[in-house]
């Protein structure tokens, strides 16, 4: 079954960028506490690629074999050229997906997107309650999302809902699934929060307990087992509660490529958090070279970069050592084993994070919402204390 993080069947592992994620803007009307976007995104809001540059990137990626296209952000609909991008995507043979909060999706735009050949829309939902939806996103968007869900359905699109799971909504799993079913959803992604970007800053505020995660998974399995429920469920596992790391992105530079708002070409969403890396940019680098040969894409491809305990591990092909960004963010060493792994000498950092999330002193600290003001504070170094306090960074 496909994983939401890579969007392609796990059977397909040859090195073509089958999945292209176009993060067309970092501007966003939502301020979600769990956003994985870079906390310094404010640096990248003034130099977005033009429509022509996006179209060229789409053409170049298609030649390399990209076929699933995600148009994401930020909120992609803040750009007024999504319709043009969709028309080109259709012409090129992509299966295209608009990943949206729903803000800015009008009848007129959804019709234009449909006419242009957009294949599906993935709508983010947050909870069954207006209070929690509005709290975690720091917006008043609950009613709007219900309306947009109906609009997506009425235009004959498959309904794909994405719900990021955290402490505030994990207790409503059954109700969330029932809501999705009632809205006529065809697919729902229950994406347990992964801790990068804003969600890392807010980790102690967002992380559910092991008991909550187990219960949520049990409810999901019961729902799946009921033959009357036709909706397909993707459950993104919360890796902190596993003893083996995730095979992040299905491998570095294996099937997934991101082009960011300013044109950087990345193998994963948070790769720019790694030190001493220079990522290619579509403005001045050939996309084929970027994917196949650039130092950034070859650096962690395969297993040859590994050191112990990964390099001699019998399971190294299963998970490729886990996530490079998580290894760096938590241990300070991008080549360390992902600390989620019980064989990692840093596993205690994960256990400490789990403990911190139960500590009321930490967990009751205010959430740092994703917004321009807080991003400027991050750039100015004002939130370093917060990271030092909450996380066991070196």
């Amino acid at each position, binding site marked *: 079954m*496909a994983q939401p993080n890579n969007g*392609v069947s796990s059977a397909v592992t040859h090195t073509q960028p089958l999945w292209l994620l176009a993060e067309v803007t970092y501007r966003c009307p939502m301020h979600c506490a769990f956003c994985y976007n870079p906390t310094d995104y404010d640096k990248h809001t003034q130099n977005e690629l033009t429509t022509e540059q996006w179209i060229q990137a789409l053409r170049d990626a298609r*030649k390399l*074999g990209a076929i*699933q296209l995600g148009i994401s952000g930020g909120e992609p609909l803040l750009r007024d050229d999504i319709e043009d991008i969709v028309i080109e995507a259709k012409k090129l043979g992509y299966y295209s997906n608009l990943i949206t909060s729903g803000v800015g999706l009008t009848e007129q735009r959804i019709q234009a997107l449909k006419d242009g050949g957009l294949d*599906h829309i993935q709508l983010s939902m947050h909870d069954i309650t207006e209070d929690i939806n509005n709290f975690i996103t720091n917006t008043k968007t609950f009613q709007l999302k219900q309306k947009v869900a109906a609009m997506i359905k009425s235009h004959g699109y*498959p309904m794909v809902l994405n719900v990021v799971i955290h402490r505030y909504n994990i207790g409503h799993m059954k109700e969330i699934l029932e809501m999705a079913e009632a809205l006529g959803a065809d*697919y729902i992604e229950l994406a347990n929060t992964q801790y990068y970007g804003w969600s890392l800053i807010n980790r102690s505020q967002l992380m559910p307990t092991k008991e909550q995660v187990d219960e949520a998974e049990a409810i999901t399995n019961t729902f799946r087992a009921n033959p009357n429920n036709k909706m397909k469920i993707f459950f993104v596992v919360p890796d902190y509660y596993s003893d083996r790391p995730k095979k992040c992105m299905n491998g570095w530079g294996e099937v997934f490529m991101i082009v960011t708002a300013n044109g950087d070409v990345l193998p994963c969403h948070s790769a720019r958090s790694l030190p001493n890396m220079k990522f290619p940019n579509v403005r001045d680098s050939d996309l084929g070279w970027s994917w196949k040969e650039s130092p950034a894409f070859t650096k962690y491809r395969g297993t040859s970069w590994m050191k112990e305990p990964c390099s001699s591990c019998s399971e190294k092909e299963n998970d490729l050592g886990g996530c490079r960004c998580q290894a760096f963010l938590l241990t300070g060493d991008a080549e360390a084993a992902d600390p989620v792994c019980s064989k990692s000498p840093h596993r205690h950092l994960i256990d400490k994070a789990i403990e911190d999330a139960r500590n009321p002193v930490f967990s009751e600290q205010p959430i740092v919402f994703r917004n321009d003001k807080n991003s400027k504070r991050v750039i100015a170094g004002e939130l370093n204390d917060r990271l030092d306090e909450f996380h066991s960074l070196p």
Partner: protein
Amino acid sequence: MDNKIEHADVYTLAHHHRFQWEEAQQNYVILFPEGMVKLHGGAGEVLKRLDGKATVGDVVADLKATFPDADDIESDIIGMFELAVSKGWLRKI
């Protein structure tokens, strides 16, 4: 779900699924929200014959005529239909 494949049945792609040739991969694929299936040669030959009118029997007959040297392809074709229906890639019309 009853997945018994009958010769008189007509199948087509499930809603929101797309079937196309991928030049870069040199094979056919089925695309759908959040996923893709790469089809080996035989499966691609079956899928491309589903025009909304051809019955399973028509597909079998056409493939037998196209590949006269292949042994017992009928059971392979039926197996392919069973798999595709159970995975939700095809629907009966």
